Structure formats: structure tokens, C-alpha cells
């Protein structure tokens, strides 16, 4: 008789715990054994005993926390099976950032998929999300409201290129999350035919370099340190979103502040971020993509973690599936 995942996969204060396997997934506090879906700070923390993740995620953690961020690491390729206690696990691409993975768990004749953060859009910097049929699908709901429809990336990148023509005396200062968004925006600019050097804030350099050593081609890049406004006219400069409007940004002269994030869909959020050019580019699913994914994995039951759960649960229930909230603390909805 099949053993329903609700008996062996439990939310605990430290994160989602798999009892028969003896491990946590993306724990928010140090644990003995952890599986980490991807390198974002709220999912990948330092100080665990043994960490299993993709080689790329382990490399990202190494850059962020220094070698020795865990006592022991184990790298897993996508599709490779690993037994942990009574549970078989496997990582599948999540399409969120470089190295991001869904965790497929099999136990007692049942299969659960913890998708971590994921998206369905094409991303030149990582392999696409692979839907895995399962009994229970565990999903985030960062953009879990029907107001979130991410427009095509091409048009958003086009806004930056158009602004360059409109304001040839100003630099384009694009606020991006250091891990994932930064490299994806660079890659999208390249696909749009932009081949000039792209300038980087110091906080973005280490992870961008890592992407390159992992084989993601990003074209000519340069540090913005030491540049003066006259040299940056109509150039594209990337920085963390928080640097826009801070003292540092004055070195750009009078830049066009842009912010690349799914939140830019909401005008109040864009104004709050002081974006003159809000770019709706997200590393998470929009509303339709969340629902499409639930159909693709065809799970009779869905657990919804961080984000706007209630609306998504309501919408999933309307399709005749079971859905419930799984309260996990410690995950941020930043991107």
C-alpha cells in the first residue's frame, strides 16, 4: 500500500524534513544533512553537516560562503539517483538559476516533487524546468496572483536599448539580483545583439565570473570602478537594486535607473524601487505558468509554500485537485 507523503515529508521549524531519509530540504538553520535546491541565500545557508546539491550550486555556495561552508558535500548530476535512508532522491532542472534543481523524492511507492524556486521561461544561463509526474507537487507562490503576467523578455530588454537611444547622454543603471538575474540579463542583452562591454558593480563580479567558469558565455564585461560619468554615457551598468539611489550611484552622473524584477509589474513597487525603467524580468513563474506547471506534473495534490498561497490554492482547487498551504518560514520573496 502506498505511503502518502504527508506521513514522511513534514514542515518543521528548520524547514521541510524527510523523516525516513533523515534530511532537510533548504533548511533555514544548520542541520546534519541537507539537500539544497539552489544557491540563493534564503535556500542555501552555511553551516550544515552534509550537503547534497548540484555541482553548480555547491560552487555558488563556495563563492558566497567560502570553502568549508559545510562539513561534507556531495554533488549530484541532474537525473542521477541517490539512496538516502529509505528514500531515493533525484535532482531535475528547475530553470530558476544556474544549478537550480527540483528534488524528486520516492518512498513507500509514492513520489513527491519539491520544486524549490522555478520558472518556465527560456533562460540562456540554465537548462529548462523538467516536469516530473508525481503524487504530491510542492510549489512556491511568489507571484501567486492573477495580476502577475510576465511579458516576453525580449520587449523588456528592448526598453533598455530604446532608452539608450532616447537618452544618449545618460548611463543605463540596471538593478539586478547578484545571482541569476544579473547573468540572465547580460545573456538576454547579448541575444538582443548588444555586444558592447557591460559594466558591473563590485558586488556582482564574483558570481558572474563563476557563471563564466561554469561555461555560460556572457561576452565582454568590465568593472565600473574608477569610471567617470563621461565614460559611461549610453553604457549599460549593472548593480544590486539597493545601490540605486544610494551614494554609490552618484558616480554614474545622471543615470537612467532601471530595475529588473517580476515585482516591477506593480506600479507602486516600481516607484518604491525608484525605477525610471521598470523591467518585468522574473526568475519565478507568473500566475499562468504556476497553473500550467500543476497541470504538467498532473499531481492530484499540491502543497503551496512561500508567497501568496491563498489565491493559488483557491485556483488549484477549482481544477479538482487537492491543495493546501505548507507554512515554511524563512523564505523571502525578493528577486
Amino acid at each position, binding site marked *: 500500500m502506498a505511503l502518502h507523503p504527508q506521513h514522511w515529508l513534514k514542515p518543521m521549524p528548520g524547514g521541510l524534513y524527510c523523516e525516513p531519509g533523515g534530511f532537510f530540504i533548504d533548511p533555514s538553520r544548520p542541520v546534519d544533512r541537507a539537500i539544497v535546491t539552489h544557491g540563493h541565500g534564503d535556500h542555501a545557508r552555511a553551516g550544515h553537516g552534509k550537503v547534497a546539491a548540484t555541482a553548480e550550486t555547491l560552487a555558488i555556495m563556495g563563492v558566497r560562503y567560502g570553502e568549508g561552508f559545510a562539513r561534507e558535500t556531495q554533488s549530484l548530476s541532474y537525473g542521477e539517483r541517490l539512496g538516502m535512508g529509505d528514500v531515493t532522491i533525484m535532482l531535475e532542472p528547475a530553470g530558476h538559476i544556474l544549478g537550480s534543481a527540483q528534488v524528486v523524492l520516492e518512498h513507500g511507492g509514492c513520489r513527491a516533487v519539491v520544486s524549490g524556486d522555478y520558472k518556465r521561461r527560456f533562460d540562456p544561463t540554465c537548462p529548462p524546468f523538467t516536469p516530473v509526474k508525481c503524487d504530491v507537487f510542492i510549489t512556491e507562490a511568489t507571484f501567486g*496572483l*492573477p*495580476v*502577475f*503576467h510576465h*511579458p516576453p523578455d525580449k520587449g523588456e530588454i528592448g526598453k533598455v536599448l530604446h532608452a539608450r537611444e*532616447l*537618452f544618449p547622454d545618460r548611463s543605463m543603471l540596471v538593478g539586478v539580483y547578484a545571482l541569476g538575474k544579473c547573468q540572465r540579463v547580460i545573456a538576454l542583452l547579448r541575444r538582443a545583439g548588444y555586444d558592447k562591454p557591460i559594466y558591473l558593480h563590485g558586488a556582482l563580479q564574483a558570481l558572474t565570473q563563476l557563471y563564466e567558469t561554469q561555461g555560460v558565455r556572457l561576452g565582454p564585461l568590465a568593472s565600473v570602478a574608477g569610471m567617470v560619468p563621461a565614460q559611461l554615457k549610453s553604457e549599460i551598468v549593472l548593480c544590486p537594486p539597493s545601490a540605486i*539611489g*544610494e*551614494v554609490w*550611484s*552618484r558616480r554614474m552622473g*545622471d543615470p537612467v*535607473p532601471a530595475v529588473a524584477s517580476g515585482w516591477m*509589474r*506593480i*506600479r*507602486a513597487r*516600481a*516607484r518604491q524601487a*525608484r*525605477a*525610471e*525603467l*521598470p523591467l518585468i524580468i522574473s526568475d519565478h513563474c507568473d500566475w499562468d505558468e504556476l497553473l500550467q506547471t500543476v497541470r504538467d506534473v498532473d499531481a492530484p495534490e499540491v502543497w503551496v509554500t512561500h508567497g*501568496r498561497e*491563498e*489565491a493559488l490554492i*483557491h*485556483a488549484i482547487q*477549482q481544477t479538482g485537485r487537492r491543495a493546501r498551504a505548507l507554512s515554511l518560514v524563512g523564505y523571502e520573496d525578493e528577486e
Partner: protein
Amino acid sequence: MQLFADLLDALSYQPARNGKLRLIEDYLRHAPDPDRGYALAALCGELELPSLKPAALRDMTIARVDPELFGWSYDYVGDLAETIALIWPVTDRATHVPPRLSDVVERLRLAGRAEAMILMSDWLDGLDATGRWALLKLAAGALRVGVSARLAKTALSAFGTVGLEDIEEQWPQHEPPYTELIRWVAGGEKPAARNTLGFRPLMLSHPIEESDLANLTPHDFCAEWKWDGIRVQIAASDGQVRLYSRAGEDISGAFPDLIEHVDFEAVLDGELLVARRTDNAVEVASFNDLQQRLNRKKPNPALMLSNPAHMRLYDALIIGNDDLRPLPLRERRQHLEAWYAQRPRLRFDLSPLIQFANWSELVRLRADARASGIEGLMLKRWESPYIAGRVKGHWFKWKRDALTIDAVLMYAQRGHGKRSSFYSDFTFGCWRPIVDEHGNPGRELVPVGKAYSGFTDEELRRLDRWVRNNTVDRFGPVRVLSPALVAEFEFDSVHESTRHKSGLALRFPRFHRIRWDKPANEADEVETLKKLIS
């Protein structure tokens, strides 16, 4: 519609005037006729469309999406038009083409409410989220993208080959979609003149100080009081009247009590005041009383009775069919006086000339003038023709000395545009006595005004650094400052106000000097300010 929607979207995020100009200019260059003319009209607030009820728009949306999901979404987004624009279900674009802006305007203008809703839902199907948002804004009648009519016309001028002044003069002779006007601006033939209701850009003055007088000859100039109202132009022709602000905004609607006394054909320059008539004398009220009128787009009868509008004339551009602008001021003044003497009008009078023999006499007159309604002196060269803009050497304003106080910086906020990384907007306060909970007398700071200017770039950098190092608390974007820095603020006058905690309101406050040296407890008291009330 898509181009217009992208324009509105970009404008709504663009804080800088120059940036806005660039965006509108770019739009005018790429959008076809008649759409771009309607876009200009929309930006100038000149499109009259049937207003659609928010409740009806909401019902129309709920008919298409789950009401529960709509509720959560509206709670989250907070703005109805934006929520509808974002949640509107995407249909097959192949069967729904986006409408043109001109279609939207022309059909909506003729449609009744019920028909308008059907049109709207059809158009919403054809547009993307930005297009839907712009359509809903347009239909709501308020674009709120921070563009004034003047700014839109400035962009039109930059797009073409015609000066702003000429555009403003022509503008009222045309109607949306302004096709003929735009063709002219783009390099075509000038449309024939039809009437004189247009705004003529004003002749402006330069500031002057006592020390400058030595270079000027007294008898080359006429002197008038500088009235503490707002500069206006009244244009009347064919039974129609327009009252324009100094920037050329039509403010006729706010002053029907003045307009109703216009029975002439002329274009006149003067000061709009609140003034009360007492036995043959006209008594000018404080700027505060005028401010109450300026705050109301549609004044109620009681306010018009208590704060009657009045125009004090000082120049004539056109009387009847005669364009007086090329004539010297000496002759224009004669025409104005002769015209007024023919038939004085209630609510209008002439700004009297001040007789003086030499500069020292004028210096004395100015020093004595502390009466309400007087802001200083105007000196105008008798030979000056009426020339639009700030032409050197003709007109001078010699303001009454500004008032000053020492106040403590209390709150700071970041500026906009180029200043968005600097703390440049300050609230400052003065001391007033209080009794604490133990019954001991003490003092507290109360805000008395806000200032954004008057410092150099270097001082701004230093102020910004000071703010970052002396913040004691934050409320959203506002930093609460340690009460430790004093600055001397300049302002033109002070009035009683119920809107402020101190009971006072300052007019045009700005930084005069930052007193890095002065301890906060030596700043002025609110009481000191009260003595300066005009």
C-alpha cells in the same frame, strides 16, 4: 493606442522635466495623425469623454474573472484601473486587434455609458497590460502622469520648428486632434488667425538691488508697486473670455466672479488679487486669502463672497482690434488709461504709477511699504515694447527684503530626478514652550515649513552627509533628524494657517545660510514668527 500607452507608461515613471520632454517629443515623431493630436489633447487635459463609473468597470471585470481572485488582487494592487489592466484575461489576439487612439477618442466621445462599456471591453481584449492601463486611465479622465499643458506644448515646440510662444498664441484657435496646428509646427503653412482668445506669453522682469540703481536713469523708468497676487492675462473676444496664469494655464473656471464683469474686447496684463471694495476704495487682502481661491477649481458662492476676485491692470497688449505690443510702454499706458476712463469696470482697476524724482526718494517709499498686498516695486522702462519672455534691460522687480528666521532641521527626504540620491527636502521647526508631564516648563520643536532650495551643490553634498550621520529614526522615506543643525531660512511672508501644527504658513521658504556653528537651542521661537504675520 500602443504607442500612446507606452508614452504614458514611461511618463509615469519619469521624474525629470527634460526626460518627460524627450519622451513626448519622441512620441510626436513616431505617432501618426490624428492619434498624436488626441494624445496632446489628453496630456493637456482637454479631452471630454463620458466618465465611466468604477463600479461598472469592476462588474465588467468580475463577469470575466473569479470574483474571489479579483478581490485578493485588488487588495494587493490597491488601484482599480491597474488591477483590471493586469487581471483582464488574455484572449486570442488574432481576433482582437488593438484599437487606435483616435478610434477610442472619437467613438467614446459619442457613446452613451452603456455603449461605452461594450466598447471598452472589446478594446481591453485587444490590448496588452500597459495598453489596458492607459485605456482605463484615459477613460477615467485623469492621466496623472505629471505633465502640464505647458510641458506638452513645449515638447511640441521642440519636435517642430515653431517657438512655444507662437504655439500658445495659436492653440486656442484649434481643437483636438490639432492636425492643422501640428502640420504647421512640423514645418507647414501657418494657419490663418481667427480670434484673439489665445494666451500671449508674458513679458517678464529681472530682479534688481539697490546697488544696481546707480547705473539707471530715474526718468527713463516708471515705478509701480509689485502686488502680492498672481500674474494673469485676460483675453476677451466675441463674447468669450479666458483668464490665463503666468504659465498660460486656463484658470477661467475658478474665477467666474471676475469673468462675469468682462464686457470688453481686449488682452490685458495684470495681477489677480483678492480685494474688497469699501466706499470707493479697493482694499487688497493678503496672499493667504487669494490662496484659498487658488485652491478651488470651482469656488462656492460663500467663498466668492468672502474672498472676491479682483484684477489690477498694468498693461494692455491688445485693445479692440489694435495690437499695442510694438508700442512703447508710455503709449500703451496712455491707451490703457483712456480705455479704462471711458468706462471703469467693477472688479478691475489700474495699478497706479508712483511719482518719484530720484532714486533716494524711491528707496524711502519702498522702505515704508509694509502694507498687505505689496511685495516690492516694479521698474519699467518707458520705451519698452511688449516683448514675450525675460528680456534684459526693460523691466525690473525690486522685491521687499525677504524675512528670515533661524530654524532647526527636523526631517529630511530625498529629492527627485538628479537629486534622487541626495537628502534635499527638509522640514524645519522653531521652538515653543510646553509643560511636561511633571508640570515642568520646557520647550519643543514644531515644524513651521519645508525648503528644497537655496543651497549650493557643495552645501547639498554636505547636508546629505550630515543627514546620513544624524538620523535618529525613519518613517518610510522620511528620516527623523537629531535636532542639532540650524539654518537661516528666507521667506517672503508668513500667514496664519490651520493646516500646520504651528498655526503658521511661510511663503516661498528657502535656505539662506546653513549655520553649522549655531547651537539648536539658539534657534528662533514660533512667537518670533508670529510677530511677522502680514
